[in-house]
């Protein structure tokens, strides 16, 4: 059992570059087990880059990334997933040459408590009948669901979700929001990038605001009116 101070994920002084241009300037924050932490910020603030830094997907980065108490910087991306991390990228990255079932089965299990198929189909009924379809035959919403389902299968307890509702129809957005609420209820640790402030305040235990590659605010969401006003002002949304 993790003690009260334990964190699932801690970033300190993380800097990152794309070629010669710096994208992150000493980012630091922590994600506690069982909590939902939301990253908010304007387009191009560096939210996606932070998730990619956690996964070790950037060409060049410095600073410390601690996953379940172990220093992970220097590890390859696939080694990082062994700490129970599941990454759902912004572009969803469903493999078009794989069927839905193959996409689901692709990521190796990282812990024994992976979600059963029946459970997954209960969460995402749309996927149930699509097992033999290829990835590029799915709609955007289905791809998003598959991208989330894919990491739940592995038994990952910490989920990194990059704008899972971006560009989807309202009814699908609501469906995915329900899934996120359900995942929180089940005790998953979630680091979520999300633009919809109302939903963020509804779901998040903690909000980290990013601006120009730095953390500009790191707030608990209790007393949400105050937080919302502050975030609105911060982000000039």
């Amino acid at each position, binding site marked *: 059992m993790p003690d009260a101070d334990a964190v699932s994920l801690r970033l300190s002084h993380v800097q990152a570059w794309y070629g010669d241009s710096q994208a992150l300037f000493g980012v630091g924050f922590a994600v506690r087990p069982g909590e939902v932490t939301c990253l908010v910020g304007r387009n191009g603030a560096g939210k996606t880059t932070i998730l990619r830094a956690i996964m070790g997907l950037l060409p060049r980065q410095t600073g410390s990334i601690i996953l379940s108490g172990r220093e992970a910087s220097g590890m*390859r991306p*696939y080694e990082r997933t062994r700490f129970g991390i599941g990454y759902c990228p912004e572009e969803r990255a469903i*493999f078009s040459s794989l069927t839905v079932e*193959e996409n689901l089965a692709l990521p190796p299990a990282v812990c024994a408590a992976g979600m059963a198929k029946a459970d997954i189909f209960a969460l995402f009924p749309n996927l149930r009948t699509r097992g033999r379809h290829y990835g590029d035959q799915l709609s955007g919403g289905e791809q998003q669901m598959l991208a989330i389902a894919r990491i739940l299968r592995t038994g990952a307890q910490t989920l990194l979700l990059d704008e899972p509702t971006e560009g989807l129809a309202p009814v699908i957005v609501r469906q995915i929001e329900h899934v996120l609420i359900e995942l929180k209820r089940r005790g998953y640790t979630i680091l979520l990038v999300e633009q919809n402030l109302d939903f963020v305040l509804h779901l998040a235990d903690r909000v980290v605001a990013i601006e120009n590659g730095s953390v500009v605010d790191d707030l608990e969401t209790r007393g949400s009116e105050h937080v919302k006003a502050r975030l609105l002002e911060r982000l000039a949304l």
Partner: protein
Amino acid sequence: MMDLILGYLTIGLVNGSFYALLSLGLALIFGLLNILNMTHGVLYMMGAFAAWAGSRYLGLGYFGGLVFAPLCVAAFGVILERSLLRRTYGLDPLYGFMLTFGAAMIVQGGFQAYFGSTGLPYAAPDWLSGGLDLGFLYFPAYRLWVVAVALVVCVIVWIAIARTRLGSILRASSENAATAEALGVGVPRVFAATFALGAGLAGLAGALAAPIYQVSPLMGSDILLVVFAIIVIGGMGSIGGTIVSSYALALIESLTQALVPQAASFIVFAFMCVVLLLRPQGLFGISVVRSHEFLAARLPWIEPADKETAAKRLTGMVPVFAAVAALLALPMLLYPVYLMKIFCFTIFAASFNFLLGFAGIMSFGQAALFGTAAYLTAHAAREWALPPEAAIGVGIAAALVLGIVMGIFAIRRRGIYQAMITLAIAQMVYFVYVQASFTHGEDGIQSVPRGVLLGLIDLRDDTNVYWLCAAAMLAVLFGLRRLINSPFGMMLIAIRDNERRALSLGHNVDAYKLAAFAIAAFCAGVAGSMSAVVFQLATLSGVHWHLSGEAVLMALIGGIGTFGGPLVGAAVLVTMQHFLSPFGAWIVAIQGAVFVLCVLLFRDGLWPHALALAANLRRQDATSKSAEVPQAMEAIGR
């Protein structure tokens, strides 16, 4: 006649089996690692040697060898991938291409030096020595066996990739290795395993081929190019398509052998050109757009941010001035033929350097242009008794025409495909010269008369030829430099950096690329014609693809996209060949090792290092100390 055709068809089936095993592995490696594996031919050859060595030293029987050889070659493949190839991942695919080219030279050169070029016999088991008489056709049992084994293995691999979990991991990693890894797939192991699989298939092909063709170090060098052509024809992304094309093309090839023997050696390459014109994605390929996307990787040594430095590099020509002045002032201190060889090779390397460095076009067929010019100049001077200026003109014009034809095909694709296409066309040209009578085959055109240039300058005097060579080199280097700084050159660089943008701005991108190709062909022609005059000789080695490889090597050693790089690269290569000649047969292997080291350590080439060193020295003079490690040293890799 019918019997003859049927007989050739059985040969076609056997060759198709080898092609299928090889192209399958090559396509898998290319699809996943994005590396055009130039070692595939030597892996095949190593398979044959492993089977031979297993029987000779370990007392393995034929079947033991059939298992032992693929395992050996796969193990070698893993070592190669883990120790060398992985250092090129994430870089432009051209580095992987060059690295495997160098590795292939090491292996082939080493085997050739150790075993010689004569074949070693390897026997098939007795019970496979008979044949199957189908009444209308006699099918030797061993050939039937080869076809059966290859088909079974190919189908198993095909099904495994299409249906199993391991196959889905391979497909996912080929599609997007970074995402697959972020999902937890152990991509490094997948890469190693895939390379091992491809190498193992090549090894199996080699072991199967050993009893039919003799075991010889050269057995893989020609088959490699045919297999490349098959992949281009079949198209990427379709394993079934690759297998089908292998057999189909082998049958076409053997049918041609029966009907028009002279055309057999290049029918596959001709077929490839037709396919590229009519259906650029290949017969079974998915779509051009996708494979273009796949290969659109930009050359890292000339990123747009580097544009200023590229210009700076060009202005940094002062040392070249000095170096050339020195060479001109002291021509007689050094052996003139050695200097003239450097000059000719400089022009040749500059041609490749211009194409790749400034137009982003990868030509691996420059030797065809060089050799064509050399042959025609030699022929015109000797048989038609033309004066040197006319003979040189004829040679250059021929290279120019061939270059334009080559360019028309080459600019239809990019990156590695482009390299393959130019290589295939050059190979066709090579086969034409092998068969044409005017080239005098292995002997070449000898004792080419030099004559009197413009009726004024007597080229029979070595000093005068020396001046002519030096002048040609300077004209080419500075002419290209002028060109690069002209609006035309700026446009080429813009296209190189972002072709789509240039297209959307309404520029005729293809015309620019073709013009670049023609200019490079002209330069290669100058180099070839000059070499015919200097050495009074034109031979097959001037058209061989090894010479194209040397153009790449020189440009790489010197620094691609630099002004003085070709000169430095040519000087290094020629000097190396000069000093390595005591090593005799090992020279190819040593050259390969230099190639590999260059790719690993000096990806920027020596020229930028030399400039940095010179700048450093100058600064040290002024401020005594402040050593600065050339930034290119970062290039050593992870």
